[in-house]
């Protein structure tokens, strides 16, 4: 038994909760909705102060960003014609939300097993590359089969990429943060290689051959669009796949033996091993499932609305990293991830392409998203901040804290 525990060091009794899952447990007990809402608001207020300090009106800027995200559609929901600005912007926000739900789940699932999966970006890339390859090959397949093949292959690619980190953790105890960072950058350079001039996937049809982008995927691999124009990035059925993934995530964790084992390892690997759960197997399994979510995100993006990809897209992409903020703000639960993904999806589109504003420039506002993202991650990760908010909410008397939290005061 002790041998199977080799990579896991027992926690010292005199230290505060150190494993990711133990911190997560603290966060779960700390203040329900109050913490994510408060940290979110705090991040937006500080972002607003930066906007104010640089000579723009923060209220008008945020109003324009909300309109840019299409959230003003709620004022007249009977208007679903995407020729109009608000419904169109909303479909674009939901496209981003689709991706963010899945990259968020990729971080959240690993978190529940006590693993911090920073590799969502790399896993997303691998799914996207494989989907691009499947979409441009196998052109004689029927549409449902081609789509299914693309989606499954993308998920498997993401799962395999993440499983490398899980395997290294299980076999030699290599920290998953380090390995996933390295895997992200390897995927980044693989992408640069695939789409560069003369690369295996490069070769745009009907365009000059020296552009470093891939060919468009075959029509048979494109996902059906249910809202908007299929030629103008309409909202594709991948949106429902993402919703289904949320349900799968919840059911897998809370209603299956596999989920029970994953959560048990996340709370306390030593106790889980004592209870007969194979800790190492669960590390690999949890990482693979996480990677499958991120790979699926890449696959849906490629088959749903991107259709082709280039080296400049590889260099600019950060949607996998945004999944970290989504998972942390959503507190690694299905409902939380859905809400946080909508928020960040709105921010991503509302601060860039959707933004029509004379208050704040889109190129400026795009960086506001990065700033708010950083602040959210910073505040959500801070235990004492959370405990103090929790105390302010008066919850401490109803549910006494663990000794670890007491020692913190």
């Amino acid at each position: 038994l002790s041998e199977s525990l080799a990579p896991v060091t027992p926690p010292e009794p005199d230290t505060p909760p150190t494993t990711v899952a133990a911190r997560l447990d603290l966060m779960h007990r700390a203040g329900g909705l109050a913490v994510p809402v408060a940290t979110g608001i705090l991040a937006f207020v500080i972002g607003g102060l930066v906007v104010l300090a640089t000579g723009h009106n923060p209220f008008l800027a945020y109003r324009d960003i909300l309109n840019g995200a299409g959230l003003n559609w709620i004022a007249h929901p009977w208007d679903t014609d995407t020729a109009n600005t608000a419904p169109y912007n909303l479909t674009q926000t939901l496209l981003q939300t689709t991706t963010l739900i899945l990259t968020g789940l990729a971080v959240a699932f690993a978190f529940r097993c006590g693993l911090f999966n920073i590799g969502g970006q790399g896993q997303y890339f691998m799914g996207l590359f494989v989907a691009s390859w499947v979409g441009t090959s196998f052109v004689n397949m029927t549409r449902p089969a081609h789509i299914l093949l693309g989606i499954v292959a993308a998920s498997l690619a993401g799962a395999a990429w993440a499983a490398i980190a899980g395997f290294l953790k299980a076999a030699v105890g290599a920290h998953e943060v380090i390995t996933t960072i390295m895997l992200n950058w390897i995927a980044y350079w693989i992408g640069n290689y695939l789409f560069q001039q003369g690369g295996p996937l490069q070769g745009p049809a009907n365009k000059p051959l020296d552009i470093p982008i891939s060919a468009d995927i075959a029509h048979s691999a494109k996902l059906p669009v249910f809202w908007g124009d299929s030629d103008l990035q309409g909202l594709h059925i991948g949106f429902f796949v993402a919703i289904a993934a949320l349900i799968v995530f919840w059911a897998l964790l809370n209603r299956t033996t596999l989920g029970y084992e994953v959560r048990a390892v996340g709370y306390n690997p030593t106790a889980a091993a004592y209870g007969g759960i194979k800790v190492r197997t669960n590390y690999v399994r949890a990482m693979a499932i996480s990677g499958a979510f991120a790979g699926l995100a890449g696959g849906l993006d490629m088959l749903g609305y991107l259709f082709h990809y280039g080296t400049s897209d590889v260099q600019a992409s950060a949607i996998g990293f945004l999944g970290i903020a989504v998972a942390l703000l959503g507190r690694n639960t299905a409902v939380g991830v859905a809400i946080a993904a909508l928020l960040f999806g709105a921010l991503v589109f509302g601060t860039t392409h959707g933004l029509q504003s004379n208050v704040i420039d889109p190129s400026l506002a795009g960086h506001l998203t990065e700033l708010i993202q950083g602040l959210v991650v910073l505040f959500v990760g801070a235990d004492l901040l959370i405990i103090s908010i929790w105390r302010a909410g008066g919850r401490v008397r109803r549910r006494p804290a663990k000794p670890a939290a007491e020692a913190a005061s």
Partner: protein
Amino acid sequence: VSTYVGQLDAARFVRPKAIATYGFAFGVLAFLLAIPPVSARSPVWPILLGIIAAFAGVFAASRGAARAGWGAVVVGMLGIALGVLATRSSTGNLDQVFTASLIASMLVFATPLTFAAIGGMFSERSGVVNIGLEGMMLMGAFWGIWGADKTGSWVSGLVIGIISGGLLALVHAFFAIHLRADQIVGGTAVNFLALGITGYFFVQLYHGNNVPTGVSQIPNVNLTSKSNHGFFSEAFGHLNVMIWAAMALVVVSYVVMFKTPLGLRIRACGEHPRAADTVGINVYLLRYFSVVLSGMLAAAGGAYLTVGYLNTYNENVTAGRGFIALAALIFGNWRPFGAFGAALLFGLSTAIAFRLPVYSDSAATLFQALPYVITLIAVAGVIGRSTPPAAVGRPYVKQ
């Protein structure tokens, strides 16, 4: 006593580990013979030396030094492959890639990594994980060139850049030490923050265009005249001040970390903070000091990149160099000379990647992934295990 020591020393050279080291050396030599200045044209030499390396590796592996031995086997095989490839390529192409100036450009690319990796060493040796090196480097890069542009002097630019990195590190330190936030989450946040801050102010202050050319630049140290094209002159004659500063930093940080009470205290905080606290060491203060110092050093590396080397700025100019520095730190086993060696290796691979397009664009691109692949292999424990400080990543609670 002296004979006893002498016997011990003699035994050291035939131990399995030592033999594995010879294997490594032969493997490297197999490749070195095939490139300039020697440029052996026959494939016999690399194959012969590579096989000797592999044999030494197998010998060592079968006598207890498994990791080092198999590592030597791998190096031997790589030596054969690369050496034979080099003998197949034209001497013209080889001369273009392997010149004395390759050493100079290796040092150029290694310098930002060295600053950041040494910075990371201080932080992690004191017990605080610093994934935020990339962000701190980016802060130094942007505010450094902004300072040099606004004040007209590279010295103040460098100082402003270093201060900006220190401030961002202070945020990380405050969340990691006082608020006891998860250090990895905090480091991730710091990276996002730096991306947001530098991106936002780059648009606000420079409208997203490039920084005007002709900003005051960190000067080079000219050891030889410009007309001298000898090996020494090409390799070391005109290096930037910051490159020499990086090399000095490695020595100084080694002395500080391993030969002074301050270094001992920092390491104590990283290995066993409770014990350090018991003997009267101020754990919080030392951790703050180390994290802020790491931010300042990483920022100095970033400032070198923009003020010393590129002399301009574009969005996210560091492009993952902070993470390579992190990799160098791990690969170098959290030691100054180890980290410097790894930085040199990664710098060399970047420098070669920049010259490889004479052969193939694909190879040049894939070569850029090499540092990350090597680090992945290193943390997997194939070539010796990397061991981080015992208490790294754990917040400390005073009692």
